[in-house]
């Protein structure tokens, strides 16, 4: 290996290790909940094993040696000679952090504390020695776990359950057995009624119904047999696995209905084939021919359906394989697509002006392809939110341990996709909100118990789509926000006046003001001076918003609304003299007219009466010092940010426009009220207005005049 190759290898190792470590963390946290899950144990072992192996190959001997110790422990667990305990997972989590530190150290970041390494290794060795005494006792567990090696894999079984007529005389209710099967996994139960005699011969005290069941479960065949343990010898029972050769068989689209019926022994394959010349569906033909009744067809169809679904699931899992690409290449691609969209817009416009048919049709084709390209390029940048969830699980676990609280983190919508950049920038705000919930929101177990709540508190983190934005909710079932305390604090800190009349929403909004912190005592967890104001700033920077709901005694909910991507914006194009601006459509409420007469009526006070509501406005012409004569009739674009309506006066509203955002150069980065720019079809540059900051700037500079109803 040459030096360069070695370096590239080392880089690849670091990347791979980082991934393995975050996976490891997740597995360990899961393992705490399910200490006997062989699949999880295997995963932890494999992660350690891989890190050790590749580490040694690329000269990270310290990491390899250290990892070896942890691997040894999990090898014992795997063989059933060591039980998964809280100590073990704690140690392994610490080891995981230590490996992280070692990798960082190799990049010249923080140095490794060898004492910590030593401590973890010794503790692990002690743990292994202590368990040595019990090694023999768990030998049984070992064979047991070996037998159920592929337990984690789902299997699909066909169960035919035909009770003898006298089943009821033992007090057995077959429905309960079927219910038990239903609890094992995805289950289809089809009752076969063809053996039920005509009513005059029917004896309700005998069982004439029999059942076909298709069940997909992670439990093994013995578990299914156990369901029928009490009816052993009182029924015909067959259990067959039907999906073994389904694994990677994607050449065929599953078994044909006729084949399934034949294999089930319901009909003969020859008879099926001889009938197949007809046009009707196989099932119908067979029913018409009287060879099999509807119930059996239904059972076979259910089987077909279930097998198909399983196969699809497996294929999906197999095709989720991915390749890794450096993110700068993606950024470059997104940039290029952005340029392309701009050029395409120009092409379309030129075609319209030219009016030539050939050019127009080419332009339309290019437009279609460009949008498709744009959408799939943006898609590449999308990552599922779930990638960050594991981090929060760890956070909640560690924090609640520190604070002596019992808290679980429930997550939902892990597959909601969001732009990579948004996810990255969202991390800090989420950490802060979750910390707040854990630290201030959820009470100590005893307090909760006294209040009639479960001792274990829950923080629920959920993500989901809502139109062109993503909603992220952080809910806790803690004490809720104390309105009076917030008000007192805000008055004490001089943020509001004594006699201020605030709505509930406005009160909650106070906690996001700079310099506000409700924590009575500063704990080590939150209240370090970085408060909700920073969260709000971060979310604002992502063009998002925060909504707070709370009920005292029942908990609080923080709802973050964020755009799907930062690269594209839905905007409203407006014109002032010769300049074009883009106002983000997400904040636009409506457009109304403003005549000179209206302005005079209000004594030039920059307030407009929109259906009886006074709305302050900002004249873009004045704000950007655009030199041109006022029009007789102008337009006000009414926007709403943080429940505050502010109008922007422009000459014309051109219309909606989806644009690619270009950041302004370094020189213009500090301009307040402008978040970026975009290039329009004809090549002109339009500035994208940063509405919240624009409002703030105007409020600050002219507090007495413009804004403030």
């Amino acid at each position, binding site marked *: 290996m040459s030096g360069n190759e070695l370096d590239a290898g080392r880089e690849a190792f670091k990347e791979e290790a980082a991934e393995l470590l975050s996976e490891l963390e997740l597995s360990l946290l899961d393992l705490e909940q399910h200490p006997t899950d062989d699949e999880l144990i295997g995963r932890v072992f494999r992660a350690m094993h891989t890190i050790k192996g590749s580490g040694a190959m690329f000269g990270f001997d310290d990491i390899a040696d250290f990892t070896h110790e942890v691997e040894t422990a999990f090898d014992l667990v795997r063989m059933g000679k060591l039980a998964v305990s809280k100590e073990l997972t704690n140690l392994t989590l610490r080891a995981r952090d230590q490996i992280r530190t070692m990798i960082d150290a190799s990049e010249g970041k923080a140095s490794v504390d060898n004492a910590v390494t030593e401590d973890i290794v010794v503790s692990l060795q002690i743990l292994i020695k202590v368990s040595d005494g019990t090694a023999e006792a768990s030998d049984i567990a070992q064979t047991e776990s070996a037998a159920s090696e592929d337990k984690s894999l789902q299997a699909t079984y066909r169960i035919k359950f035909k009770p003898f007529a006298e089943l009821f005389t033992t007090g057995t*209710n077959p429905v309960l057995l079927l219910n038990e099967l239903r609890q094992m996994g995805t289950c289809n139960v089809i009752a076969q009624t063809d053996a039920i005699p005509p009513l005059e011969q029917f004896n309700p005290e005998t069982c004439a119904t029999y059942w076909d069941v298709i069940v997909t479960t992670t439990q093994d065949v013995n578990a299914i047999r156990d369901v029928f343990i009490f009816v052993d010898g009182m029924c015909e029972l067959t259990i067959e696995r039907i999906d073994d050769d389904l694994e990677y068989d994607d050449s065929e689209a599953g078994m044909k209905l006729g084949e399934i019926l034949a294999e089930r022994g319901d009909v003969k394959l020859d008879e099926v084939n001889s009938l197949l010349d007809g046009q009707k569906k196989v099932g119908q033909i067979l029913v018409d021919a009287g060879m099999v009744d509807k119930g059996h067809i239904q059972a076979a169809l259910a089987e077909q359906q279930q097998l198909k679904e399983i196969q699809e699931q497996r294929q999906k899992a197999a095709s989720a394989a991915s390749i890794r690409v450096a993110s700068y290449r993606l950024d470059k691609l997104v940039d290029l697509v952005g340029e392309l969209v701009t050029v395409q817009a120009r092409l379309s416009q030129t075609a319209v002006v030219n009016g030539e048919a050939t050019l127009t049709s080419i332009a339309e084709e290019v437009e279609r392809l460009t949008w498709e390209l744009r959408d799939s390029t943006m898609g590449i940048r999308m990552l599922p939110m779930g990638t960050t969830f594991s981090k929060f699980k760890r956070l909640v676990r560690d924090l609640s341990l520190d604070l002596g609280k019992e808290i679980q983190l429930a997550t939902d919508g892990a597959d909601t996709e969001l732009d990579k950049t948004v996810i990255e920038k969202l991390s800090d705000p989420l950490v802060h909100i979750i910390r707040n919930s854990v630290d201030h929101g959820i009470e100590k177990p005893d307090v909760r118990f006294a209040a009639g709540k479960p001792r274990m508190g829950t923080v629920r983190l959920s993500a989901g789509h809502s139109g062109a934005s993503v909603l992220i909710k952080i809910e806790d079932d803690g004490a809720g926000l104390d309105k009076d305390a917030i008000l007192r604090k805000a008055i004490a800190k001089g943020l509001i006046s004594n006699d201020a009349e605030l709505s509930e929403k406005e009160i909650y909004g106070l906690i996001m003001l700079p310099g506000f912190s409700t924590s009575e005592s500063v704990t080590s967890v939150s209240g370090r001076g970085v408060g909700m104001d920073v969260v709000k700033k971060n979310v604002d920077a992502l063009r998002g918003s925060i909504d707070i709901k709370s009920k005292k005694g029942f908990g609080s909910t923080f709802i973050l609304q964020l755009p799907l991507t930062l690269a594209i914006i839905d905007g409203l194009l407006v014109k002032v003299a010769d300049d074009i601006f883009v106002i983000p459509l997400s904040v636009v409420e409506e457009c109304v007219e403003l005549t000179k007469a209206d302005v005079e009526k209000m004594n030039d006070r920059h307030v407009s009466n929109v259906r009886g509501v006074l709305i302050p406005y900002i004249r873009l012409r004045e704000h950007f010092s655009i030199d041109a004569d006022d029009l007789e009739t102008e337009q006000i674009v009414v926007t709403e940010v943080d429940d505050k309506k502010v109008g922007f006066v422009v000459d014309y509203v051109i219309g909606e426009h989806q644009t690619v955002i270009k950041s302004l150069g370094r020189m213009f980065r500090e301009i307040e009220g402008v978040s970026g720019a975009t290039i329009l079809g004809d090549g002109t540059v339009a500035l994208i207005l940063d509405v919240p900051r624009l409002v703030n700037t105007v409020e600050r500079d002219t507090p007495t005049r413009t804004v403030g109803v």
Partner: protein
Amino acid sequence: MDKVIMTVDDSASVRQMVAFTLKGAGYAVIQAVDGKDALAKLASEHIDMIITDLNMPNLDGIGLVKAVRGMPEHKFMPIIMVTTESQESKKLEGRAAGATGWIVKPFKPEQLMSVVRKVLG
């Protein structure tokens, strides 16, 4: 209304363990000391399920199962026999008499509950 389960055993400690477990799971429990006592209680009380020991004075478990199955109104009553492993033949005898299922002594509370759920839902 809570389902009512009758535990029949001449050992008070077994009855108490069964009763404690079932009450904890939300069932009402009636205790009977032997087969004869059980039949008397069955005549006067509403009962949804019986858990019975095999070896008892007066009327043993098999006798109880036969007697209960003989009553038209209790023909479909779920009955669980408590057996010891050595009584394999008894299991078959009980099955022939019409017992719904069995549980092997000694058992843990969760084993008992899984059997009860199986036959009572």
